[in-house]
């Protein structure tokens, strides 16, 4: 690994016209759970610019293979086999290394392994639905899984979630923390979903749709989807106004 001096600058201001607002009545649960007062800003301190690090040593061999990590020996999860790969970048376009990515999803029938999911689609005994990995020095990551199914959910009387994978990311500062969802190229359900519709701009939604990449496919095994994720950029320490005591 390269021995680079850690970056210590503050992060770019978050664009709150690009991110979904808290109050989005089309997604009914947000109505009672959305703060109504303006959030308060202050200059980033060490509490914001620092963050936890996770070493590659926490990873088990099958953590990034959801087809196998819950399966009985010799068996594997049911569903179309896929590889999801991409880069974690920041708003400056630089790859972000050592990002812990955690992902979770429904099985091929659209059912989650969770005591609160009562959807009548069956559980797959060989599918748990969670995985994790850490980006390499250039911000690259990949994992194997099965294509999740779409599922109905209680919001309107007939709302369905498009096929999606939930993602959680740790950047280098605690305020870079992000949870989002990945959608699939060509899925017409994306444009019907009240949760997707919490995002105000079409371009921002398109940024969450993974592209089918036949060149990265493993022949006779799994198709590949490319999903890049962008975390907040960081002010260069080069220009930092170092005040006394900082």
């Amino acid at each position, binding site marked *: 690994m390269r021995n680079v001096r*850690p*970056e*210590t600058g503050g992060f770019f201001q*978050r664009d709150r016209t690009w*991110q*979904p607002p*808290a109050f*989005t009545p089309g997604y009914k*649960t*947000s*109505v*009672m*759970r*959305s*703060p*109504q*007062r303006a*959030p*308060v*800003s*202050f*200059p*980033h*301190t*060490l*509490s914001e610019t*620092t963050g*936890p690090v996770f070493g590659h040593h926490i990873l*088990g061999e099958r*953590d990034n293979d959801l087809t196998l990590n*819950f399966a009985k020996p010799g068996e594997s999860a049911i569903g179309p086999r896929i590889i999801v790969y991409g880069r974690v*970048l920041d*708003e*400056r*376009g630089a790859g972000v290394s050592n990002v812990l990515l*955690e992902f*979770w999803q429904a099985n091929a029938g659209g059912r989650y*392994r*969770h*005591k*609160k*999911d009562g959807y009548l689609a069956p559980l797959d005994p060989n599918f*748990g639905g*969670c995985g*994790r990995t850490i980006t390499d020095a250039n911000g690259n990551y990949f994992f194997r899984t099965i294509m999740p199914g779409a599922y109905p959910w209680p919001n309107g009387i007939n709302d369905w979630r498009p096929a999606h994978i939930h993602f*959680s990311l740790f950047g*280098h500062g*605690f*305020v870079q*923390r*992000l*949870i*989002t969802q990945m959608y699939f190229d060509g899925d017409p359900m994306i444009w019907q979903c009240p949760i*997707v519709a919490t995002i105000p701009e079409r371009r921002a*939604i398109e*940024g969450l749709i993974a592209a089918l990449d036949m060149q990265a496919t493993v022949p006779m095994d799994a198709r590949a989807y490319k999903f890049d994720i*962008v*975390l907040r950029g960081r002010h260069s320490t080069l220009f930092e106004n170092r*005040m006394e005591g*900082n």
Partner: protein
Amino acid sequence: MVQELRRLKESASQTAGPYVHIGLTPNFGGIEGVYPHDLGAQPVNEKTKGERITVKMRIVDGAGTPLKDALVESWQADAEGLYNSPSETRGTADPNFQGWGRYPSEMDTGEIVFETIKPGRVPFPDGRMMAPHISLWIVARGINLGLATRMYFSDEETANAEDPVLTRLEHQNRVSTLIARRDGGAYVFDIHLQGDKETVFFDI
């Protein structure tokens, strides 16, 4: 025309949803055998330096009901005020304290109880010292973008009174929403998402 800056836009956030446990605390959620333990469940060990404290938290919606499907992450300095992070350049933090914790609400009561240590003081960019605090990040079904707030301590009156973040709040009557009150051996902190007691959240 001018040159393009070619900045990218941050990926849009989406709710963690009701099944966040599967991904972030699978053992708590009943998925065993994939990871040996849930990350962030035990931020302190027997060698961690500093005063042990217990925090009891609830996250309450606009109808006064505690959330039973939320997840909170905490980030704090060690007892000396140092962060266990590569971006910490002032010194080396206690190796027995990662500084980060992850806690799901209890599915039947909505309570969140965890043990940590009281953090030391950390400077604001201008050098003034901030009062001891724990940074919190809250996600749940119905929350589109994770909510950031801080928890301060009721028995740090002098430090709180000069804290650069608390003193800059325009509505000083809202400072109390950021202060956990000591109740016996524990600090009790209710986070209100809405209403008269709405907690101060940060756009940072």
